[in-house]
């Protein structure tokens, strides 16, 4: 904590901002050609948020259409495009890059005590690839969109669909390399860029989670890249290996697709788990319970995640024996997630918990992820899944994991590190209100869908029987609350940029390396190379992080 005291005793007047990564260069060029991971992260934040907004608007249209049993707001063909584009934008352009490309990019070098990621130019390249992939996809959507579902199932996508499958496919293909390069950069950085004393088992769990994520990114993404490329070639050349009419195999597509796309859900959730580990340990002011178990469960999820793709294909005609094996392995992959959940709960036990906004989100995550995970076990059982496949039960399940898990964790992370990223504090009051609104709105939206699915309402239809309307009205009402709750952070976070209280270097009094530099950090991250002499999550007495002491110190300096 020498840094903190040194800074509070600094003679620089408070109204003259210190040189940091934001005010170090104001030209457009200084942003577009930057090699600074923090600036790249901010540009990712803006781009990813734009895609999230677009995906959210599509979701709004879906829920409005489903307000009434008949398909009246949208034509059925339009509805197909709307849910497809919701899926594509959300999965490929929001869920996958959100935490790694924004929070990971910003925090990973800070957490390991490096000046930057190991390959800064590759990092900038990944952002440009993301933009190019995004622009191609948006262009295709404006031309008329795509209606295959985000999964691009063959032979519909290759032979029958009259929409812009090829253009969107190429957009997604290109975007995949952005994710590969990010993962590659993280792996290299974690191996070679750690500060002296920052051993593997002193790494914050956020870093471990990103290491596991990166493994999946570089080993999984290329497979879906080649698969989507094959779909595009097949559409273009009117011949290919997925066309059953000439002896090709549409199920092969599903195998190749899910070989990536199941591990991809771990690309989405693992970084979220990393965020939650940080937030829960931090706001319980306690070393995380079972550090090694949480760390290795991330790796276990990454490894086992590659062995369970067949549970997406129980009713696609794979053999019953394959189904049993995949079912068993799907149960196995639930174990490391359960380990994490137990350890987070155990961390909170007898911790001195403070309910700041990030912690509210994190506690919400625990409940929602629990429901999402346990309903996953329903779907992983070979027998039960025959009843539930392609119903709203599935939709509710993966939204509980993706939104209730990943998006909530993302918001927790954004709120937790916002003071570090921008140097400003947001309104704690509105933060708490929005966290609670999102929790309530989310449950109101998606819990009825479990019941709807169990009653047999199929997914991806614009109309449904009248007796299912009541629950659908609940769901749409919940979606409005959820949407409102999600807009609120945009407003008060942007407000905080201009009117927010200046953030201290360590506003939460947390021990991570990222809190031991100024807020916002200087371009080179640390004034001098930090030397790590403490264990991760060290809230011990000698750490100087006692909240009471800190408040007293603060009172004196003010």
């Amino acid at each position, binding site marked *: 904590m020498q840094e903190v005291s040194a800074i509070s005793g600094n003679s620089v007047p408070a109204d003259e901002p210190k040189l940091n990564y934001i005010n170090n260069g104001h030209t457009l060029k200084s942003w577009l050609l930057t090699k600074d991971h923090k600036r790249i992260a901010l540009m990712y934040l803006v781009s990813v948020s734009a895609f999230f907004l677009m995906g959210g608007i599509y979701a709004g249209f879906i829920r409005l259409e489903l307000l009434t049993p008949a398909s009246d707001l949208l034509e059925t063909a339009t509805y197909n495009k709307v849910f497809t584009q919701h899926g594509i934008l959300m999965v490929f352009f929001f869920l996958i890059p959100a935490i790694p490309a924004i929070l990971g990019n910003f925090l990973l070098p800070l957490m390991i005590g490096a000046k930057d990621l190991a*390959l800064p130019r590759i990092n900038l390249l990944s952002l440009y690839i993301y933009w190019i992939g995004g622009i191609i996809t948006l262009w295709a959507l404006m031309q008329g969109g795509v209606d295959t579902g985000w999964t691009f199932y063959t032979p519909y996508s290759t032979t029958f669909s009259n929409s812009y499958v090829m253009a969107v496919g190429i957009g997604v293909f290109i975007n995949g390399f952005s994710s590969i390069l990010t993962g590659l950069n993280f792996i290299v950085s974690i191996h070679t860029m750690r500060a002296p004393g920052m051993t593997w088992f002193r790494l914050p769990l956020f870093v471990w989670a990103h290491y596991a994520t990166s493994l999946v990114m570089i080993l999984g993404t290329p497979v879906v890249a080649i698969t989507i490329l094959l779909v595009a070639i097949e559409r273009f050349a009117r*011949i290919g290996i997925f066309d059953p009419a000439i002896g090709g195999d549409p199920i092969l597509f599903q195998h190749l697709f899910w070989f990536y796309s199941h591990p991809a859900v771990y690309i989405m959730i693992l970084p979220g788990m990393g965020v939650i580990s940080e937030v829960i340990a931090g706001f319980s002011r306690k070393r995380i319970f079972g550090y090694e178990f949480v760390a290795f469960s991330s790796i276990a999820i990454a490894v086992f995640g590659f062995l369970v793709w067949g549970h997406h294909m129980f009713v696609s005609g794979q053999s019953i024996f394959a189904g049993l094996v995949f079912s068993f392995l799907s149960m196995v992959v639930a174990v490391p997630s359960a380990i994490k959940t137990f350890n987070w709960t155990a961390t909170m036990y007898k911790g001195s918990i403070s309910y700041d906004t990030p912690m509210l989100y994190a506690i919400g995550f625990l409940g929602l992820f629990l429901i999402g995970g346990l309903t996953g076990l329903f779907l992983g059982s070979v027998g039960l899944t025959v009843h539930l496949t392609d119903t709203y039960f599935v939709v509710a399940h993966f939204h509980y994991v993706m939104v209730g898990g990943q998006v909530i964790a993302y918001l927790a992370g954004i709120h937790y590190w916002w003071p570090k990223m921008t140097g400003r504090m947001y309104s704690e009051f509105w933060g708490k209100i929005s966290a609670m609104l999102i929790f309530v709105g989310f449950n109101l939206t998606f819990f009825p869908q479990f019941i709807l699915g169990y009653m047999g309402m199929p997914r991806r239809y614009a109309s449904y029987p009248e007796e299912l309307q009541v629950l659908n009205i609940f769901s749409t009402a919940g979606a409005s609350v959820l949407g409102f709750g999600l807009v609120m952070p945009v407003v008060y976070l942007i407000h905080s940029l201009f009117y927010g209280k200046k953030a201290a270097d360590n506003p939460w009094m947390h021990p991570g390396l990222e809190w031991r530099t100024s807020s916002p950090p200087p371009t080179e991250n640390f004034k001098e190379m930090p030397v790590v002499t403490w264990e991760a999550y060290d809230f011990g007495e000698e750490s100087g992080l006692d909240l009471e002491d800190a408040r007293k110190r603060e009172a004196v300096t003010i």
Partner: protein
Amino acid sequence: MTAHGDTHEHHEPGLQHQFEDMHQQEESVSIGMWAFLAQEIMFFGGLFTAYLVFRWRFPMAFAAGSNHLDEFMGGLNTLVLIVSSLTMALTVYYAQKGNRTLQVVMIVLTMLFGATFLGVKAIEYTDKYNHGLVPVTGWNKKVKEDVSAPHVTEQDCTQVGHGDGDDHYVNPKGEFQWKDCSLVKLAQDHNYLTEDEKIGYFTNGEIDANKFRDKVRLFYYIYFVMTGLHALHMIIGLGVMLWLLWKAWIGTFGPKYYAPVEISGLYWHFVDIVWIFLFPLLYLLGRHFLH
């Protein structure tokens, strides 16, 4: 493994701002390239999986298609690439030794071999174009109808096949052509056909030339995608070598700084190794059915 504590006032040539010293930088770019190659293996892995699945199902069609590839050309290219790997390895060696002249010579030789490979590949592709073996309709040589040519029916499976002077077929639209079903008959006589083949080549118990052609076409589809992507990697490799050539020419590399040469070499060797797998899978496996 971790960064080193000493602050670096001295600035070594080629040291980037985020690193503390050259050792850290070399280690980083090397791990980065290995991770990238792991990614590449998975990228090609999807294609190899597709190849294996269809070869398992339709071995006769794949043998028939494979038989029309020129194993001499393929073998020549294998040789060319292996020698280029040697010159690439020597490039790294001379970069480490700081021998600028031999470094440049070896890079030029490597590029020469790479270009030779692509040239041979172009000859092979042209041959496929001339014989109507490109799986995309319209991308083959268009052969106008010739009244003097012997009449060839679609269902005729008695034709001996390509390469035996049967250039007098008609192909006005440039479609994929394949009429030789002799391998199916052979396999049928010896009871070699797989379950998929018993369905995939026959209509009402009779050999269906069109259905067999479609399976051969699948082989050529996979052949073109695999070798095409491999050739694309070769072209990128040549671009990298051009950059290396310029850097070596101005004397950038020496005993203290040769990491770019080393990781470009890793990439080059990787592209070679992919070919070492492609060659037997596409050109050699299954030839014995006819020979």
